[in-house]
């Protein structure tokens, strides 16, 4: 069996496909990075619906600028730079508006309808329930599976580094992490089912 050609370079492959006009490749990048882009913006902007609107604008800007993105660059770092710039630009505009009209709220654009949506109390309750279930499932994992998974997802280590740290063959580590993710997904899916038609 040949070595996977894309190992460690899936973003580059997806960007290249998107640059060739494959929209589905860019959709995958949206799925992969939308939470991290939103989190980057949320460090500077508090309002949920503004965060969502700016997240949309970041992906629009990235898509427009995609032809000029250089393959040797890191897509994620480039995307997060766009996100930080969008948030700072929003804050500057909001501050200017507040200086001109001190009674307006920071997220008020003079009645213009915003496209971001703040989560409802029901959505927040569902999220809480889901993430509590994920935490419980992680806690219930066998020790080696849990350690390998957390080294991968929290510490961001690659499989080789995890294998070395835990003294296990790399394929064993891959298998442990895959089984851990499967166990969590199995428990999470019933809670996610009601929102299926609102996901990608």
């Amino acid at each position, binding site marked *: 069996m040949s070595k996977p050609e894309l190992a*460690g370079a899936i973003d580059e492959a997806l960007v290249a496909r998107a640059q060739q006009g494959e929209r*589905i490749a860019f959709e995958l990048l949206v799925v992969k990075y*939308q939470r991290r882009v939103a989190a980057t913006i949320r460090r500077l902007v508090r309002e949920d619906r503004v965060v969502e609107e700016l997240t949309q604008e970041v992906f629009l800007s990235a898509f427009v600028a995609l032809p000029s993105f250089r393959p040797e660059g890191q897509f994620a770092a480039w995307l997060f730079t766009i996100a930080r710039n969008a948030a700072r630009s929003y804050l500057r505009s909001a501050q200017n508006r507040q200086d001109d009209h001190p009674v307006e709220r920071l997220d008020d654009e003079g009645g213009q309808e915003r496209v971001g*949506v703040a989560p409802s109390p029901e959505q927040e309750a569902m999220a809480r329930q889901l993430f509590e279930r994920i935490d419980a499932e992680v806690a219930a994992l066998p020790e080696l599976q849990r350690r390998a998974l957390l080294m991968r*997802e929290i510490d961001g280590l690659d499989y080789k580094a995890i294998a070395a740290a835990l003294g296990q063959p790399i394929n064993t580590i891959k298998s442990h992490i895959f089984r851990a993710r499967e166990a969590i997904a199995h428990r999470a899916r019933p809670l996610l089912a009601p929102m299926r038609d609102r996901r990608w």
Partner: protein
Amino acid sequence: MNEASRLLDGEMTAAELTTLLERLKHDGELRDEIATEQLIRDSLAGLRTLDDGYTLRILARLRQSQWGGG
């Protein structure tokens, strides 16, 4: 490993990626599998938000603004 894990880890060949991208255009279950896998990964990394229409609204905005009629 399932396809979602292999995709998100880049553990596939360029030819497999081509096939998978083509399937993704029509296979809602595969899209959901990938979205769920990414949600779990993000959750473990501390990014705890649902995708309650979030991705679809981003894609709708892209379609309106840049992707034309497709």
